[in-house]
């Protein structure tokens, strides 16, 4: 299920930088659509990142994160060849995940 996410992890001198893009509407539950109807809230609530299977980052999100969320984080212990996975779960129970191998910067 990688069609709704992009990820890139690059090892730099001091840390590995991971950039993630998730394709998601992030509806607040307050926006009206073209028909004047309120779009129900639909947003990512949890994001988890793992390094070689071990959790390194856990995030809880509200409706204030932009549509198609973009996130960057840094890992001290990761280097080229390590596997980083990111998973999200939204308020409707849908989820997405992607993983990548760290490349040398």
């Amino acid at each position, binding site marked *: 299920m990688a069609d709704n996410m992009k990820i890139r992890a690059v090892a730099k001198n001091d*840390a590995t930088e991971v950039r993630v893009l998730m394709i998601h509407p992030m509806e607040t539950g307050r926006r009206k659509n073209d028909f004047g109807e309120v779009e129900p809230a639909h947003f990512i609530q*949890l994001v988890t990142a793992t390094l070689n299977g071990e*959790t390194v980052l856990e*995030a809880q999100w509200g409706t204030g*994160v*932009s549509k198609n969320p973009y996130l960057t984080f*840094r890992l001290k212990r990761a280097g080229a060849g390590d596997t980083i996975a990111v998973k999200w779960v939204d308020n409707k129970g849908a989820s997405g995940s992607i993983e990548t191998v760290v490349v040398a910067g």
Partner: protein
Amino acid sequence: MKLRMNRRHFMQTCCALAGLALAAPLRALAALWNAAAFEARDVGGALQGMGASAIKPSADIVLVAPDLAENGAIVQIEVESRIPGTEAIAILAEKNPTPLVANFTFVNGAEPYVILRIKLAETGELKAIVKAGGKYYSAAKNVEVAVGGCG
């Protein structure tokens, strides 16, 4: 697994797997997502929901955000904590209908650093709350919003 599988068996397996896949995250969600904090309508309520109290301003939190956001729907911000033992960073937008935007927890060598794109409803204070060693620290920056982004 046998390569040849009849249709009934296939459907049963799929339904069982789908059921597991749906049930697991929902259970996890109920336990992990801090509804009290994220649904709070003001900063005070959100902080209370997070259990954050006795918050001290700190110069060791770097909060980077534009002075002027042309489009409040997408405002890129960067937060870095230089406070030793940082466990978590929360981001709050004072004037948003629900101010708590995100709360990040760092473990196992993740640096207390994030870049995130957020929505800002109107001009107001952006806050970063850092939890380190069980204590809370804050930094704030005023961001002027030209067109609000919390439809």
